[in-house]
């Protein structure tokens, strides 16, 4: 029945995020948005267009260009009864605000022995191939996933974007939510009703038997395209999106790898010391005796993201490269 409702209504990723925020702001007067150019401009990606008209500048607050300052202010408001959604325009700017995120927000509940809470949402972006060069293209979700006390979500579909955003806003912990800036126009089914998606629950985007492709954010589409290519070769790939890196749905990832015997982890963060490393390790630990080959990783190339299209496109995993590696693994294993 849900599918029927879903089938009738399609939203873009941007519209889904906006709908989640608008519904939460209607539901809970404590929720407000703050950040650079969030009000009349609706962000450079127009994700928030129209919110200020409905909720006014008190609840959709334009800030100066001061990431540490307004992230800290959001935190203070979160600690004292509000539920702010702080907008960090480009994920790269997280570096500016890291003291507030990692030293302050992430630790306040623990350091206070459980007395203080920080129900703060930080909305930001990831993803390369927008020709935005090295300081506007990074995918830094591993950075915050490394810090205990933070939760981290990365929706890959409009449906997930809405449900995960609502969960983030209702969570009593600081949550960093990454949206791929190249995916705002991607459309998909989104019901108008109020629904949430629990954190720590991976989603099987395509079922398969021969290899597990674990993919995050826009890499889900790379993995799905790779699965199409593999199907032509008679290889059945299962595509799983963890949806949140913290908490991580270890059970779903491991049981898929146990079933298929092969796994590749695809993520747009830098490959070294990143999300692919952690997830590959978790799968190797959990599924070791059922694996026919080492768990492989495909992350962004370990270089500052170059500007030139001819170079930038080389830094990100592609469906062809994923399919090639997957086919090789499956051939060796069987």
């Amino acid at each position, binding site marked *: 029945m849900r599918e029927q409702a879903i089938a009738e209504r399609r939203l873009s990723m941007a519209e889904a995020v906006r709908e989640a925020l608008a519904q939460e702001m209607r539901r809970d007067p404590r929720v407000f948005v703050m950040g650079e150019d969030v009000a009349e401009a609706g962000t450079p990606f127009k994700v928030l267009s129209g919110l200020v008209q409905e909720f006014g500048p008190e609840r959709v607050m334009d800030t100066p260009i001061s990431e540490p300052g307004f992230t800290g*202010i959001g935190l203070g408001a979160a600690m004292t009864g509000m539920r702010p959604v702080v907008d960090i325009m480009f994920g790269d700017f997280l570096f500016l605000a890291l003291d507030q995120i990692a030293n302050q927000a992430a630790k306040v509940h623990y350091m206070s022995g459980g007395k203080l809470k920080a129900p703060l949402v930080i909305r930001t972006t990831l993803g390369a191939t927008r020709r935005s060069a090295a300081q506007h293209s990074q995918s830094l979700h591993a950075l915050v996933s490394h810090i205990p006390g933070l939760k981290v979500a990365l929706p890959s579909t409009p449906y997930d974007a809405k449900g995960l955003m609502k969960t983030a806003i209702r969570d009593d912990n600081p949550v960093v939510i990454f949206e791929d800036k190249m995916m705002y126009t991607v459309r998909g089914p989104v019901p108008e009703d109020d629904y949430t998606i629990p954190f720590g629950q991976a989603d099987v985007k395509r079922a398969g038997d021969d290899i597990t492709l674990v993919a995050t954010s826009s890499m889900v589409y790379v993995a799905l395209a790779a699965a199409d290519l593999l199907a032509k070769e008679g290889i059945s790939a299962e595509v799983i999106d963890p949806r949140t890196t913290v908490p991580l749905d270890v059970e779903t990832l491991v049981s898929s790898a146990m079933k298929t015997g092969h796994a590749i982890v695809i993520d747009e963060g830098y490959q070294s010391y990143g999300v692919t490393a952690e997830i590959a390790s978790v799968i190797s630990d959990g599924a070791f005796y059922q694996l026919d080959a080492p768990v492989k990783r495909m992350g962004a190339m370990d270089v500052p993201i170059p500007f030139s299209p001819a170079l930038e496109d080389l830094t990100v995993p592609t469906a062809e490269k994923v399919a090639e590696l997957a086919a090789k693994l499956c051939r060796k294993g069987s």
Partner: protein
Amino acid sequence: MSAAKGGQSLDMYRSMLRIRLFEEQVNDLYRGAKMPGLAHLYIGEEAVAVGVCSALRDDDYITSTHRGHGHCLAKGASVDRMFAELLGKEAGYCRGKGGSMHIADQAKGNLGANAIVAGSVGIATGAALSAKKRGTDQVAACFFGEGALGQGVVYECMNMAALWKLPVIYVCENNMYNEYTHYLETTAGDIALRAPAFGIPFREADGQDVRSVYETTHAAVDRARSGEGPSFLLYRTYRQHGHHVGDIDRAYYRSKEEETSWATDRDPIKLLAQSMEAEGVADAVTFDRLEEEVRTEISEGVKFALDAPYPGPEEVQMHVYA
């Protein structure tokens, strides 16, 4: 001035003395190897915390610093749970997980001490934004040392507090030393000119005179509470001890004469006692009685903490997430 006379002066005296004796006890615990880690003593600066917090209500917020025991006590924390926190005991304000630099006491509006210099300026400013959004008349006082003037986030927050007329009071305690470096070596220009550049009123007072601190803060609190926005208060004070309890040899950055002169002629507790005696508000008998009471409170508090159990191993993974 009258508000700070009589009974209130006695209360402020007691509060300063409690901080002084608490800190002396902390130093003894450190030297006796009974306290894990280090602590940054507030001795000599008591008039700032007490003068500021006396001008606040219980439901007003403060944020504090690595040198924060005085702020916590002045905002109403009890000495037994403070000692317990310093010793890493479960009965401490943060179940022993925060320690000296992270004491928070939500019941008294204390949003926490902070081990990052200027780390809590955003939190205090955000608490003020929250008070305004929730339509309360609470204010937030943000304590920081003159060392924090080197951090950009202070100016970012002041900018937003002024833009949005937030009920926040920036309390700069100038104890003259950024750790081991005199502030004149690190601070260009005039501190007094920083806040007015944002349209924030600047007031300055003698941080050794608790009544003066109280009066100055009170005016800023009134202003904030009535919706007129932030203030920046600068209190000149002096850290009588080292940067932390282990900072014993200080001759390379300041003279013994300077320390002695502040401790003898500019001690905030002595100065208040002298004024109260001169005004006939209190005499030696009163001070002796008060000191005995506070000493009892301190010794009972430290005994409580020493006897209290450590947190069990199950605590280590509790409270990572709410």
